[in-house]
């Protein structure tokens, strides 16, 4: 490639991410963080999940319960299939900004705004939902039209054939070098694909399904199995995205945070030479 720049020690500086990918990546991060925090604010007003069209208040699928203990102090509990744990301090009861234990599903430092304010939470959520959707549409449109997404994210036959080796390399934290480092490895592709084409679009669909007006036209809630199912899936998809981000950031740190961050900010990525004798 004409853009490659040789560096000392056989390393190679290659152009990895075009501007549209870098910009949409960071806009996506910002909007997802704000959507998560405002979403948790909205959750505080009814921290229980159900399956189907309606709420069966007495038998939620999962719920954060706020109670008052024998000592008169607020306590919190998380109930989910096979789970019934005291979560005082985090879920159901947590200290407010003044250090006072208060009954609320999610702590103030994880909600936007910090105070309990459903109307404000919804205002932030629906604003950044637009940013998220428009940004995602730009990423998908440019990626699909340039065929970059197909090229970068679909695993090749040889990658799929050697998936066992890829898993072993990952577990030993051996990261790709040389020519192999020019493309995503098969585990990256098999993670990015369902996130980009599964989790993220499902966030939008389950979100739209909860709108009574949109539902009158599209019947999305019915298609998804009911409005409460849509709401539960919306939360589970958000949890899936949080899990993805945790692993993603972990991998960036392990693979070399400076190189990885540089590549997502400037586009330039350093590839180490393909030598087998390094530890």
């Amino acid at each position, binding site marked *: 490639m004409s853009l490659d720049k040789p560096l000392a020690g056989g390393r190679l500086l290659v152009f990895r991410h075009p501007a549209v990918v870098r910009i949409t990546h960071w806009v996506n991060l910002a909007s997802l963080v704000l959507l998560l925090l405002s979403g948790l604010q*909205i*959750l505080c*007003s*009814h921290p*229980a999940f*159900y399956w189907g*069209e*309606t*709420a*069966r*208040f*007495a038998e939620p699928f999962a719920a954060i319960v706020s109670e008052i203990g024998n000592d008169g102090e607020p306590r919190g509990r998380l109930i989910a299939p096979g789970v019934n744990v005291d979560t005082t301090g985090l879920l159901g009861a947590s200290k407010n900004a003044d250090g006072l234990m208060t009954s609320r599903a999610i702590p103030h*430092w994880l909600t*936007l*705004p*910090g105070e309990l*304010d*459903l*109307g*404000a939470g*919804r*205002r*932030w959520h*629906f*604003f950044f*939902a*637009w940013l998220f959707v428009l940004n995602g549409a730009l990423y998908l449109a440019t990626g699909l039209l340039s065929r970059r997404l197909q090229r970068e994210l679909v695993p090749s036959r040889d990658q799929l054939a050697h998936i066992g080796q890829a898993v072993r390399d990952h577990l030993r934290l051996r990261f790709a070098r040389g020519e192999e480092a020019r493309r995503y490895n098969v585990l990256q592709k098999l993670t990015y694909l369902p996130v980009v084409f599964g989790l993220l679009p499902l966030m939008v669909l389950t979100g739209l399904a*909860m*709108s*009574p*007006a*949109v*539902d*009158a*036209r599209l*019947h999305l*809630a*019915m298609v998804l199995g009911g*409005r*409460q199912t849509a*709401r539960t899936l919306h939360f589970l998809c958000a949890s899936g995205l949080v899990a993805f981000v945790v692993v993603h950031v972990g991998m960036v740190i392990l693979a070399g945070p*400076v190189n990885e961050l540089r590549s997502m900010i400037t586009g330039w990525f350093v590839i180490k030479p393909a030598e087998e004798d390094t530890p």
Partner: protein
Amino acid sequence: MTAPTTRRAWLRGGLTAAAGLAVASCDKLTQSPQVNATLDGAEALNRRLHGLFVGRSALAREYDRSAISPDFRANGTTNPDSEEYQALAADGFADWRLQIGGLVERPFSLSLAELRAAPSRSQITRHDCVEGWSSIAQWRGARLGPLLDQAGLKPQARYIAFFCADTLELTLDGSGDYYETIAVADAFHPQTILAYEMNDAALPVAHGAPVRLRLERQLGYKMAKYVMRIEAIESFENLGRGRGGYWEDRGYQWYAGI
């Protein structure tokens, strides 16, 4: 080894500063009028897009009897404590009269029996609360459109306001009284009814007896309970705190289709 150390120190210092700034500026940001006005822009966009895309006539989904919730929750006021309301309730709302006025040619009032005789509709629909839960019930009520036609809306009328018997917050100026406003177009939607019946029985007090608004396709807080008076208006600026409803005055969105 100096470069990574300084880099790390710089990074750590930067992160600490950023976190401190974030916490300090968060409250300022969420309370700033400019920020909130910007965020409200999305609400206007949603309302317009829904108007274009969902349209005036699309019906909210209706369900079978088997879908009716056994545990339909009653939110907000569940028994208005004013003497006036309690007196009306004591004799089954025989003395209740619904006033229809404001920007209309022929203001009039009707009794509950007269309302029951007006053109009606029965529907089994899902009630979506802003909090996130949903319940399904059967509702029967007088269609609002024909009643407004009977009164004859003046051309300036843009909204229909509902004044209710319940007071959610005690205030000296009466701004704690429940009220709601909806667009005229939504008032004429076929599923918009003044419901006097829930699940084949008289509307219970907890759910807004004698009459509550059903505005399918929007959230529950729009569906005023304990309706006493209906007015056609040009603007809701002078009602309550001027944002179009009890909960809107306390930060909820006027358009509740989302």
